[in-house]
């Protein structure tokens, strides 16, 4: 199908200003500045837009929480850190549709009452930085941002900040630290950025894909937007498929599309003519689903009911003939390596879980080792500043529950049952 964000398909190149305007580009902004910020927030709330960075928080709610704060100034931050392994959606949006993203940024800033917006873009994304910089210049020359946007009293300055390329640098409070010129270390929450954000002021931090939806909502209305997806998850979502499938790529689908459609029709099925053993819908931090959950609709509620989550849409497949112990060890090692080192509990948990998995992989520790994972995860629950500490748990605990045979085989022989 054609998407709503990528109407021309995801492979078309960078869209220039004239091309964007020819299909209604910046008309949403023209409408926005003629109405009130409250009306914009209401439209986005009515559209039930949810954040696409992983947590799925309602965007209209985030904006109203920011706007209702009395402190000035307020800030808007576009989070294009995109450090999840295998996620390419935000990069592609910024590379191909920079004006759609920028129009969303301007409308969002208007809605929350921010006169300064920061575009936080992964420093490795050279093409995205270039196309965003080009588009910013075009949009400024056309009067879409700067002093007196479109003749209105609204002033907006926009600045692009290159983001360091490590996992926690995409966490919203780490983003704020980097913009303030500090190390990419998450802050303790609460307070949340909507209350105490950039330079201590109310700040809305929104993912790139989230803001790419905003101009379309304002242009076509909340009702039109809700005609895509499900009541719980409106609109479309961009999914990333990697080397697990025959046709890796990014695919925009309405929420509620069965997982099977993404894997089989879009991705061309799992690579190597194998059967699917497990599916991780939000790699690397979600619970595995067994293969018989392949018809689960891709929306927040359905995924939660199935026992996993949607995250930011990086879908990972494990084929028959692959050992889940080996697969989950990679995820665990990733979190141990990416733990920023700020919170002792996170270092303790991510390192201990990885050591436990390695011992088990080598057949050490005996049966009691199987009980240690849950104890370590429970001990560290609720500790740590950011969510990284909660991430190794779902993959490990679901792997233990769904594929105990793989763990038993390692314990019994000290070898992988597959390799």
């Amino acid at each position, binding site marked *: 199908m054609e998407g709503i964000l990528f109407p021309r398909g995801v492979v078309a190149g960078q869209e220039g200003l004239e091309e964007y305007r020819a299909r209604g580009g910046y008309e949403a902004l023209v409408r926005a500045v003629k109405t009130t910020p409250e009306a914009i927030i209401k439209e986005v709330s009515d559209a039930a837009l949810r954040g696409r960075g992983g947590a799925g928080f309602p965007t209209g709610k985030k904006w109203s929480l920011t706007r209702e704060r009395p402190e000035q100034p307020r800030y808007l931050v576009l989070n294009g850190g995109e450090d999840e392994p295998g996620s390419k959606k935000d990069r592609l949006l910024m590379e191909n549709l920079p004006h759609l993203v920028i129009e969303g940024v301007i409308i969002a800033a208007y809605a929350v009452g921010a006169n300064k917006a920061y575009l936080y873009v992964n420093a490795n994304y050279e093409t995205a930085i270039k196309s965003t910089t080009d588009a910013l210049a075009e949009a400024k020359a056309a009067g879409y941002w700067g002093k007196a946007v479109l003749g209105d009293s609204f002033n907006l300055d926009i600045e692009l900040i290159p983001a360091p390329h490590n996992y926690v640098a995409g966490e919203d409070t780490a983003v704020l630290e980097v913009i303030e010129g500090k190390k990419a270390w998450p802050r303790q929450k609460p307070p949340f950025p909507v209350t105490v954000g950039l330079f201590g002021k109310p700040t809305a931090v929104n993912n790139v894909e989230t803001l790419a939806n905003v101009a379309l909502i304002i242009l076509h209305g909340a009702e039109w937007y809700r005609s895509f997806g499900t009541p719980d998850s409106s609109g479309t979502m961009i999914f990333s498929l990697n080397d697990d499938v025959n046709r890796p790529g990014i695919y925009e689908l309405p929420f509620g599309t069965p997982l099977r459609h993404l894997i089989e029709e879009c991705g061309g099925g799992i690579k190597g003519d194998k059967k699917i053993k497990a599916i991780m819908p939000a790699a690397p931090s979600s619970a595995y689903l067994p293969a018989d959950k392949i018809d689960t609709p891709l929306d927040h509620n359905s995924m939660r009911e199935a026992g996993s989550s949607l995250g930011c849409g990086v879908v990972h497949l494990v084929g028959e003939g692959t050992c889940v112990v080996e697969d989950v060890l990679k995820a665990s090692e990733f979190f141990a390596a990416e733990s920023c*080192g700020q919170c002792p509990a996170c270092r303790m948990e991510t390192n201990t879980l990885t050591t436990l998995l390695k011992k088990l992989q080598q057949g050490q520790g005996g049966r009691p080792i199987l009980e*240690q994972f849950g104890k370590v995860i429970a001990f*560290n629950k609720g500790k740590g500043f950011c969510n990284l500490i909660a991430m190794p748990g779902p993959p490990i605990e679901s792997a233990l529950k769904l594929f105990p045979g793989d763990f038993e085989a390692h314990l019994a022989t000290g070898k992988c049952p597959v390799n």
Partner: protein
Amino acid sequence: MKRLCLVCQNIDCKTRGSDKLMAELEKKVAAKGLTDVEVKPYMCFGACQEGPNVVLYPEKSWYAGVKADDLDEITEHLAGGPHVQRLDTIDSSLKELIYQLLDTGVF
């Protein structure tokens, strides 16, 4: 297997000087001729607020809030001397969690 004297090297313990304590312990253990004891770094016993933490294994003695002045007594314990009761302040449920981990070979 050698007996272990595990010294936490996670952030909190380290900021309270656990790296120096570990180096000192190594010297004292060597000076006593305790060739069956290995002094080793450990990634966190989960009692950060009460560090620096030192755990003797397989004896399962946990010493918290260890200072340089305590090291002679800990070395004496390793050499067969008495348990240092005043440093044994950690809650038993946390001890159980960590001892179970150590029993599975996580060190």
